[in-house]
């Protein structure tokens, strides 16, 4: 367990710093409250309505599709780094992987999943 002591110290310092600064600012900052200061701040605009509302499903769709192709890119990096060791095998594997995703991409395009309107 000895090797975990630095982690513990790190945690203590992190929590201590956060707690310390909040405590310090609450002690030394002069308090002058007024109506505007106490109102909820949202991008400088007066908040109106409930924040919990329905979001159009197309945002969800785009997010899911983004993750898919994002992961493809993430996998391409380690493959590029180990390209020489993996040789032909790696090339064929990666080509297969990309072909599978590409078929999905063609399907999406044809189903017009990427058209916003």
């Amino acid at each position, binding site marked *: 367990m000895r090797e975990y002591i630095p982690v513990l110290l790190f945690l203590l310092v992190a929590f201590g710093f956060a707690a310390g600064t909040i405590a310090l600012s609450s002690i030394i900052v002069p308090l002058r409250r007024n109506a505007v200061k106490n109102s909820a701040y949202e991008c400088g605009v007066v908040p109106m309505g409930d924040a919990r509302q329905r979001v159009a499903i197309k945002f969800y769709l785009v997010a899911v599709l983004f993750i898919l192709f994002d992961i493809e890119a993430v996998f391409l990096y380690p493959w590029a780094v180990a390209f020489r060791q993996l040789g032909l*095998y790696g090339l064929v594997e990666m080509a297969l992987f990309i072909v599978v995703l590409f*078929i999905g991409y063609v399907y999406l395009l044809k189903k017009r999943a990427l058209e916003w309107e």
Partner: protein
Amino acid sequence: MTPVPAPQLIALDWWALGAVIALSAGAMLLLLLEFVPAKPGSSRAAVLSLLTLAISAAAVFVARDARRSIFDGMFVHDGFTVFFTLLFCAIGAVSVLLSWDYVRRTGIHHAEYYVLLLCATLGMIVMAASNDLITIFVGLELMSLGLYVLVGFRRAHLESNEAALKYFLLGAFASGFLLYGIALLYGATGTTSLTRMAAFLSESPLRGNPMFVAGGLLLLTGFAFKVAAVPFHMWTPDAYDGAPTSVTAFMSAGAKAAGFAALLRVGLTALGGMPAEWGPILSAIAILTMTVGNVTALLQTNLKRMLAYSSIAHAGYILVALVAGGRDGASAALFYLAVYSFMNLGAFGIVTMLGRGREERVLVSDLAGLGFRQPLVGLAMTVFMISLGGIPPTAGFMGKVYVFKVALGAGLVPLVIIGVLNSVVSVFYYLRVTVALYMQEPQGEPTEVSWAAPAVVALLVTLALTLWWGIQAHDLLLEAQRSVMGLL
């Protein structure tokens, strides 16, 4: 870190991977074919699915005697894999035949339906053929994601959406349990490979190690959810009832068999038979599953819900074989799974045929008088009910005989008594269906039957197998024993 040696293309055994390659390629081809316009009412998606499943089964059949360990031992091709691959291809093919007309008449005829069905079948095969906890998880997710969407395929129906959401949320939760279990087992043994886990455990048995026990139990929970064992069964009736009936048939047979396949392989390969700590827990789950399933099924008036509870009860009988443990228990479980799959596919298959057009008749009372008006439907349904109830001369009877025989051999007398009592209880609700078929007059409009050649073929195949294995059970049992012996 030791450098990873460059893998060789030649090292792969193409026949052993044939089933997986064929199903992946078939599913992708089907997806692309969606954009090549077809004649309205064309059956090409169903035909192509059948062809894919046939190629897949043929590939694994050609290499049935080969024993291979591929991808650094993550994927194995042995007797167990061959048995389950053939079973899943058969389940998939029967489901495609049952879906053929059903999806068209209920207005859910899309190529995606068959794509998802093929992907789910692929997931089941990967689950049975995996020799590594991570690959098992990938297979399980592939199967589950396909099934979640298939359950919600009747988009316009509120029940279908509800079923899909319930199945998805609880399924995701169960996947979490499973993954946590895998993580703990990895922490305890330092590997996810089943073979290496077995080697580690033979050197240093982790009896009573909390991390190991907790990991194993979480893993068990994840699988118990997939096979619908009590107390992880709550999703089953709703999901089975809301799903399109052809999907219910597919998942009730396939997902259960896949869950048991993975559980059996983990138990037999990694843990050297079911661990002793699991004995009382598995017994308790088995007793609860049989009893709750059967007693609740007594109260159902909806045929799909009744069959859902009956499928829960059947998971309980298979669990009895698992409690008995060892290779004998495993082969009895394999036999029961094969038999159960076909009689259940047949029973749900008849439900897909009830009603005309968009209308679906799913109540037990809808069967009233159907036995005389449609003799084939009456006869087939009666045989499936008798078989599910475990009455000779049907396959269901032989399945129960083997399971209880193995359990008696292991000295599990109380478990066998409870199992037999449960079988007696179950006969009551199975026979109620027969009574409705032959001894009741229809109230209101009599149920019409949608006849379609593919569904009739599926019906005849399942009927023939249910009767054949009831008379000639020995062949199938030998196959089951051989495949368990051949476990790599």
